[in-house]
């Protein structure tokens, strides 16, 4: 019974409610929101410590893909038992919700805590209208994200997965400053629902799978993964059973991670939403699809995840790497460039996941965290630059911002290089691991992906060149306000 877990979900939610109902004292609520976000960050750090100090109970004998999910710390309460007024095949449905954290979820919780805190922090200076409501909605989103990452059963996973939508569409709709935030939020809603509603069919069939063996239906990851591991070891031929359920799950998570034919919501949303909102979406929310693959599809359906599915999604991942990079090269709206570069990087993670090897999965988990930080940082920098300059276009002329904002310029170069996978910065480790994992499965895909890294360096350097250098930037002289360097420097602990 771990008290940190409910606190991580409830603290941001409760403070958001306080903010919404604060009425006339709303203006004073901005520091309160920041305090709540800071508290959440502290809690997530605490959870991380607990998880990594807990004795390892994981017996890794059959490779990561077949390992059962065993949370290191868990929170299971009898009060969180859902008895639905429906019975199937004479069996009442009685599902126990459970929450917990293992290594992967702790990493994602930490990412949410960090990104959430800085997003709220920057919101206080970036968002001019209805700041307190914005912060409240951000806190709700953080709470829901924590719920997704901490859930240890299909039902609570799905509830929180869907619930993340509500604050996000409101954030995009209400505070978007791009061309058409209304259309973007609608597209975001519809695309995500188009993925998640078919997904629920897959999830239900997963939960009902034990019924075939005469066991009661369950939603707990630990039990389901044990059943799946058993099925895998008993040598049922791969792809024989439940394959449609896996395809539905892949569709749902694929839309969330914006895999190639389903990606059109992503650039539109990123371009329309405020960069501060986008930093949360790009760094954490876009990882939900990957987290779902890692948490549900791979461990729970080893028998059903056929080699075709693995290759199809892997190939799409590889294509998306190159496609994203190429489009990023051709766009000149800075927001869209970042959106497509983010798309391209998510492709690497998909590739690593679909390798289903231990290197690939580990690399993917690491890269999820690292890419989250890098993307969030890029969008924060963009948000600060836009605050000073208005919309940033790369093609207009060389802007020479380095002369005006030397500190921001250093950070931008730093994160661009990290994103491009320069050895010594965090982007490298994850990319290398994912590619070496995929190497065992399909060399062709790795070859395509490596092409993507070259292109990645290209568009990264293009940003740096166009934006920072090339002129002395004398047109703007009064804009050199003191930078929000304090909150950025805290980021520099990245490995």
């Amino acid at each position: 019974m771990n008290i940190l877990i409910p606190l991580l979900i409830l603290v941001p939610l409760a403070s958001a409610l306080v903010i919404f109902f604060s009425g006339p004292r709303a203006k004073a609520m901005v520091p309160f929101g920041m305090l709540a976000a800071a508290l959440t960050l502290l809690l997530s750090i605490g959870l991380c410590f607990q998880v990594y100090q807990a004795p390892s109970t994981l017996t890794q004998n059959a490779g990561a893909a077949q390992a059962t999910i065993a949370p290191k710390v868990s929170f299971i309460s009898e009060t969180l038992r859902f008895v639905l007024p429906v019975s199937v095949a004479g069996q009442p449905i009685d599902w126990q919700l459970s929450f917990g954290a293992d290594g992967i979820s702790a990493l994602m919780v930490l990412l949410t805590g960090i990104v959430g805190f800085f997003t709220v922090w920057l919101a206080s200076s970036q968002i001019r209208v209805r700041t307190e409501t914005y912060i409240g909605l951000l806190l709700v989103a953080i709470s829901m994200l924590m719920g997704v990452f901490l859930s240890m059963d299909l039902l609570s996973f799905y509830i929180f997965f869907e619930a993340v939508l509500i604050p996000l569409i409101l954030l995009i709709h209400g505070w978007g400053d791009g061309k058409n935030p209304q259309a973007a939020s609608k597209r975001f809603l519809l695309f995500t629902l188009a993925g998640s509603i078919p997904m629920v069919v897959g999830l239900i069939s997963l939960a009902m799978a034990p019924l075939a063996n005469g066991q009661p239906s369950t939603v707990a990851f630990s039990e389901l993964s044990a059943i799946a591991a058993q099925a895998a070891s008993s040598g049922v031929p791969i792809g024989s059973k439940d394959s449609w359920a896996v395809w539905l799950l892949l569709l749902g998570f694929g839309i969330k991670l914006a895999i190639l034919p389903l990606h059109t919501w992503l650039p539109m949303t990123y371009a329309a939403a405020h960069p501060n909102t986008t930093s949360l979406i790009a760094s954490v929310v876009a990882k939900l699809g990957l987290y779902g693959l890692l948490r549900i599809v791979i461990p729970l359906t080893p028998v059903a995840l056929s080699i075709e599915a693995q290759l199809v999604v892997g190939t799409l991942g590889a294509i998306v790497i190159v496609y994203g990079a190429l489009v990023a090269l051709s766009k000149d709206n800075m927001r869209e460039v970042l959106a497509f570069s983010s798309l391209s990087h998510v492709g690497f993670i998909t590739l690593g996941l679909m390798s289903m090897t231990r290197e690939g999965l580990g690399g993917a988990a690491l890269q999820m965290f690292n890419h989250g930080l890098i993307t969030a940082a890029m969008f924060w920098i963009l948000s600060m630059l836009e605050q000073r300059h208005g919309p940033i276009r790369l093609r207009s002329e060389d802007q020479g911002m380095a002369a005006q904002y030397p500190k921001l310029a250093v950070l931008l170069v730093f994160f661009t290089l990290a994103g491009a996978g320069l050895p010594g910065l965090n982007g490298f480790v994850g990319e290398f691991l994912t590619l070496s994992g995929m190497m065992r499965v399909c060399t062709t895909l790795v070859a395509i992906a490596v092409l993507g890294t070259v292109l990645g360096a290209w568009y990264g350097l293009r940003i740096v060149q166009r934006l920072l250098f090339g002129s002395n930037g004398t047109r703007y002289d009064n804009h050199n306000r003191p930078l929000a360097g304090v909150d950025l420097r805290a980021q520099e602990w990245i490995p």
Partner: protein
Amino acid sequence: MQITKAAATHLTPEIILLIGGTLVMCASVLRGKSQREDIYAQRNNYAVASLICLLAAIAARYYRGVPEIGNADLGLFRFDASALAAERLTFLGGMILILMSWSTAPKGRLAEYYGCLLIILAAIPIVGASNDLVSMFLGLELVSFPTYILLGIVRNDNAGAEASLKYFLLSAFASCFFLLGVSYLFGFCGSTNLAVIQGSFGEGKRLMALGLLLAICGLAFRITAVPFHFYAPDVFEGTSVTMAGVMSYLPKVAGFVALIRLLGTGTLSPGASGVVIPVLLVCAALTMCIGNILAVAQNNLRRMMAYSSVAHTGYLLLALVALIRQDASPGVMYSYLAAYAAMTLGLFACLGEIEAAGGKSHLIGDLSGMFQRRPAASIGLTVALISLIGLPFTAGFWAKFMVFVGTVADRQTDSISMLMGALMAINAVIAASYYWRILSTLYAKSESNVPLRVFRPSLFFAYTICTVLTILWFFVPSAM
């Protein structure tokens, strides 16, 4: 065929409502022409009287307790979980509808209005408890006739006349279908008792299936299933907001309860189900798709809600099929209807409050910027719409989720079930697009920012109850 004493005892709540309805209707005659009281006092009197009748009925049910006899009384009536669930749904909806009517009922005809409403509320539990084609038909007609009157009296213009005439003619037509089917069933089985009829389903003759299909056609009209949905948009548009709430909810409850009673659960023979289930599935698929696609095209809020109500019928039909096939408990459908009551009646109550406060709610555009003008009603609308989309932390989430469970579960190898599940998923996404349109209009910036300040406590209570229930039922789905 006679009403036993036990049955009469268990029907006490309905009897109270029938008598109450009749008395309320007589009240206007007894009071004569002395219209000295102002309209507010009259409104209060009639609404309070109706509420007292309803509360007395609920109290009678509690006082009598839940009948223990189960299936024992197999005469005209049967009191089992289904009957009680139907009663609960009706009383829940009735409570909200009376609150909604409080300030929206037509001025000159208060007595008739509340009388008819109470009689409808009495009739639906009778349908739910019926164990005989005769009592079921009587119950259904007892729902229909007051509805004709209500549609006729709430509006005195052309649209109102069109709505009431259209509903009257088509409803009479549907009743004829139902009677024709019933006559086949009677001719085949030699009895009007549903237990007997369901017992002879096993013989599985074509004639039986034909009779069932005709009866289903008659009921499909009440639940606005395609292809019997044509009246819905016109009727919704041509009547008051409260009456639109009545039309979207009460006939649906009556129709579905009758369907559950008629088809039974798990009693259909392979022969009969081979005809009935494909028909129901096709009907469900058409109802979902046509309802949702036509709703997207609407600009008129009332017509959109009519098509949305059609679409929800489609989901409920899917749940019904799952119910028939798997011998599952009918809880899915009752929970769905309860959630549907909370969200749809909540939505209509909010619209009603906006209209009562002087705003317009005819077109979607009329709601533009309503959040600034009328925050409380807008929040109620938001919760109702999120619930209609089916997002978490609302009852609508469980409603959709359970239909998915019923449709997909333990039929994994059946490609038809899968297809229906996928179709419903696609439909849910289409539905989200038009609900989102209303939702984004609420928060849009509009040029007229005049706040609507008139406060109607009854409507406020109505949608507060709905909103609270919608959120509460998410956390306690077993109470739905």
